[in-house]
């Protein structure tokens, strides 16, 4: 049964249509495996080979990978949520109730989006501290650390703008507390606050602005900076593994 399935799978991969899409072919040689990465627009930001130590759990705890994964989950669940959401009052809150009582698996969808968002903030912070404690910000990776700080602030803004969208008491007052802090900025604080909220208080204009920021501007910026972040990992010589290279410690005796 399994053999038959494998046979069909390999037959499919040998068809002209499949090979026109995935040019890596069906082999398992290192050349084919390189092509899996090289020939994919999504994977070609990565290097074809990585250091053996870089894939060990100890080095990264996979925190960067998992941060990216939460972002992907948030994009998918977020797009689905957008299908049921009107960024205006009082419809926004009514849509939350619809998700709860009308939409199939609506509660699950919202839960997954919410918990993934919290997980992303946690993971991004953890990623930052892990990178710091491993000293991975050192040359030549200085700039990628700065890109990471940009991504951290983008993550916080993404989470914060999303916080308002349910338009319940929790959302309204959390954003009120947060935006009041902006007024404390000397000279231009009130102007910035007005610009952010589209008014002097958190109102329907603020909801629309936060919606546009949350669903369009900030995700696009995040995708851009994630791409730069990944690309720079490769350009800066791969993931920092630290410590002396084990191969230098032991020299291979001549056979």
């Amino acid at each position: 049964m399994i053999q038959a399935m494998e046979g069909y799978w390999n037959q499919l991969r040998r068809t002209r249509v499949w090979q026109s899409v995935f040019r890596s072919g069906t082999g398992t040689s290192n050349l084919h495996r390189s092509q899996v990465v090289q020939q994919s627009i999504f994977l070609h930001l990565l290097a074809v080979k990585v250091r053996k130590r870089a894939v060990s759990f100890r080095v990264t705890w996979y925190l960067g990978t998992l941060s990216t994964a939460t972002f992907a989950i948030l994009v998918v669940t977020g797009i689905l949520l957008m299908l049921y959401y009107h960024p205006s009052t009082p419809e926004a809150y009514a849509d939350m109730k619809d998700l709860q009582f009308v939409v199939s698996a609506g509660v699950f969808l919202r839960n997954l989006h919410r918990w993934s968002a919290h997980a992303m903030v946690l993971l991004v912070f953890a990623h930052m501290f892990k990178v710091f404690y491993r000293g991975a910000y050192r040359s030549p990776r200085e700039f990628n650390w700065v890109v990471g700080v940009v991504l951290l602030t983008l993550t916080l803004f993404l989470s914060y703008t999303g916080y308002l969208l349910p338009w319940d008491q929790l959302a309204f007052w959390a954003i009120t507390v947060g935006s009041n802090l902006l007024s404390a900025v000397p000279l231009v604080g009130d102007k910035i606050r007005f610009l952010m909220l589209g008014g002097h208080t958190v109102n329907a204009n603020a909801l629309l602005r936060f919606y546009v920021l949350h669903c369009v501007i900030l995700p696009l910026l995040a995708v851009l900076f994630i791409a730069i972040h990944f690309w720079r990992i490769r350009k800066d010589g791969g993931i920092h593994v630290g410590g002396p290279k084990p191969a230098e410690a032991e020299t291979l005796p001549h056979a």
Partner: protein
Amino acid sequence: MWVAPNPRKPRPSPMPEPPRFTAAVDSNSRRTPVRVAFLTRRTSPQVKVTDEDTVMTWPNGLFRALVAIELLVIGLIWLSILWDAPLEAFADPMLTPNPAKAPWYFLGLQELLHYFPPVVAGVLIPSLVLMALVVVPYFNINVESEGVWAKNRQTRLRVFGVGMLALVALLLAYKVYAVLAPTVLIGAAMLAAAQPHPSGRFAKWLASKPLSFWIVTWFLIAASVLTVIGTFFRGPGWAWVWPWEL
């Protein structure tokens, strides 16, 4: 020409030694590639490997990443099945909840707001933290990562003492005990690291830590304490409550 080592063991003899190689000529370059090797006694040429072992990104790296992502997704799905996201009543500008709390990752800042004026807690401190994060990799003191007490120990101890006293005085003046505790803790650990002749693995580990390590660890502990207090220990009027009273 092909030169191969003589397998015979050299005899410890005062007599002149026989040549320790045999010469051979072969015109088939495929079978015997042209090379000359001189092997002298008691040394063996070593190949220094400068390249690390690598693995293919696909499948070795990406497969592990997929497994990690899968575990995360399973965890998040369980979370989403077991716990519902909060949804309170319709937003009402006339009805202020007490306390009104920001999202959890800003509760450390909101807790600071309880001690300091808004321009300090809401503007100055976050901006300074952000700027500090950006410049982390550009300071040589971070890049060299030398133990904080490795050089100029006396001078540095004096600077440390003055700085610590000033910070403790500031925190006492504003009654910020939540930050004072981690500050004293880190200060004590730094002093422990400053002993001139560290013995034992832990003491040596402490002594090897650079200044940036201490600052970031202090920041991590202080921010965590503030966030936990803001989340679980603050009730109406931002007064202290216990988590079970919330």
